[in-house]
């Protein structure tokens, strides 16, 4: 399910959260990176039909979501996991999924129940299907969230910051789950955690200050730091030029990895950049300090 966005703007009072976004999202798993406040969540909410755009054009699978009919057509094929999804504490896991399934229009009771059972198995929550959602951990809540998003076998899945706040084990589990479900679908993963995109996506976009500043293969982000990533080993203070991306203390001194267009220290040696370093280089270009 392709997504074509052109000239998308969204304003909240005097604040413009999206400032003319142009983006094409092909099928498969697609990452959307950006700092907090870059406009990712606003873009996700527009795509989910929760927020109407102030101006611009958004076509999802050929449907114009600025029209009521187009929005409903997209929502019938959409699975959406909002940032900080709240669950009804008085319902059990099964009841919550049944409720969402009914609102998605899954009217065949037997088929809906079967699908809920399969999804609960898939996300590892079958044992707690009859337990009330009150008291679920953050990881369990996210898994309920992804299960509801998958109800109805949607062609487009939009997940907003799904791994924020999860412990490393839950994050890896969740990433694997997302990669599994991508298959024939379009999965749009919005996150500020570079590692999540590195591990799951081949294509990505980067947002900064309400605009898309990069779109293309993930390797293209890495390329932004080619020739601008350095390692400095020193027992003194960190290099004063560039952005220190990591610092590891070792017996011979601290190993700093630095993103800088110029050599940050006479002892600096060029190294192969990672995605995180490419992202830092990109953000320095997009939002100069």
């Amino acid at each position: 399910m392709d997504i074509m966005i052109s000239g998308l703007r969204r304003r909240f009072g005097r604040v413009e959260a999206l400032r003319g976004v142009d983006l094409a999202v092909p099928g498969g798993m697609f990452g959307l990176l950006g700092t907090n406040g870059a406009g990712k969540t606003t873009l996700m909410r527009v795509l989910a039909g929760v927020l109407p755009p102030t101006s611009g054009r958004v076509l999802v699978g050929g449907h114009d979501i600025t029209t009521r009919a187009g929005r409903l057509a997209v929502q019938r094929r959409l699975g959406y996991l909002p940032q900080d999804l709240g669950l009804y504490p008085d319902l059990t896991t099964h009841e919550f999924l049944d409720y969402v399934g009914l609102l998605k229009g899954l009217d065949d009771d037997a088929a809906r129940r079967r699908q809920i059972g399969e999804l609960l198995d898939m996300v590892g929550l079958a044992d707690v299907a009859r337990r009330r959602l009150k008291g679920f951990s953050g990881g369990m809540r996210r898994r309920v969230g992804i299960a509801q998003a998958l109800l109805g076998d949607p062609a487009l899945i939009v997940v907003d910051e799904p791994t924020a706040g999860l412990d490393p084990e839950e994050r890896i589990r969740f990433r694997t789950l997302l990669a599994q479900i991508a298959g024939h679908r379009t999965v749009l993963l919005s996150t500020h955690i570079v590692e999540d995109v590195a591990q799951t996506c081949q294509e990505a976009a980067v947002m900064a200050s309400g605009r898309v500043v990069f779109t293309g293969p993930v390797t293209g982000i890495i390329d932004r730091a080619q020739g601008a990533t350095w390692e400095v080993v020193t027992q003194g203070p960190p290099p004063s030029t560039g952005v220190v991306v990591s610092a590891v203390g070792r017996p011979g001194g601290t190993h700093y990895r630095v993103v800088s267009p110029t050599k940050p220290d006479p002892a600096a040696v060029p190294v192969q950049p990672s995605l995180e370093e490419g992202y830092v280089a990109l953000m320095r270009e997009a939002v100069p300090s």
Partner: protein
Amino acid sequence: MRRFFAVCRYEFRMQIRKRSLWLSTAGLAVLIAVAQGDRGPRYLPADADAARVMGSWALLFSMLLPIGFGMVLADRLVRDHRLGAASLLASLPTRPGALVAGKYAGSVAATAVPALLALLVTAAGEFVHRGDPALFPSAVAAFAVVLLPGLAFVAAFALVGPLVLSAPLFRVLFAGYWFWGNLLGPNYLPSLTGTLLTPIGDYPASWLIGERALYAGTPGWLSFLRPEPGGGAALLSVVLLAVLATPPLVFASPLLARRTSS
């Protein structure tokens, strides 16, 4: 319609599990039973007919129970935002109107169950005392014409009011309105008490009992809303309450949409 029924079913299920709903009903019902004074239905003659006994009880319950229900219902629409479920609901292919109507119907049903149960328990108590089996159908009838219209009226405002005001402010204003517009004698201050617009069911109760139950038709402010009690006036009161409950429900969808998109 299936989505309306789905929302209604799950809203009902969520609310009926709320301890506060049962505790407020039980607490107020006990208070009413104990503190009703010698004009209350407990002191009606032993040969009083079942409709009169249960009509009086229903009116008594109707004076206080809706306050508790109004408080409990005041967060039902705004809580989707508080919990973080509003964005998910807005992304589903369900029309906002079905969502609001379903939540309203589920809320009314969920508050109706403990109210009806309280009245049936009372009927059982009266049955021990009076031995008239007609008390039970009379309890159901009194519930339907005295308590239920008031509950439906209160539910509409309690659901939608907090979309405009904060829920705590709404609760304070609602309690103030309830005493001013339903219980304050019309001879003290200009008040809606005793008019066709009082949701405590004064007119339907008067019709059931066969005489003025409380203040229905007592001369006072807005005299055109104070006809003599009777079957027609009771029906008109119920219809007017239903009509008055409609605008908040109609405005709920755009208010919710505005809240979600801000």
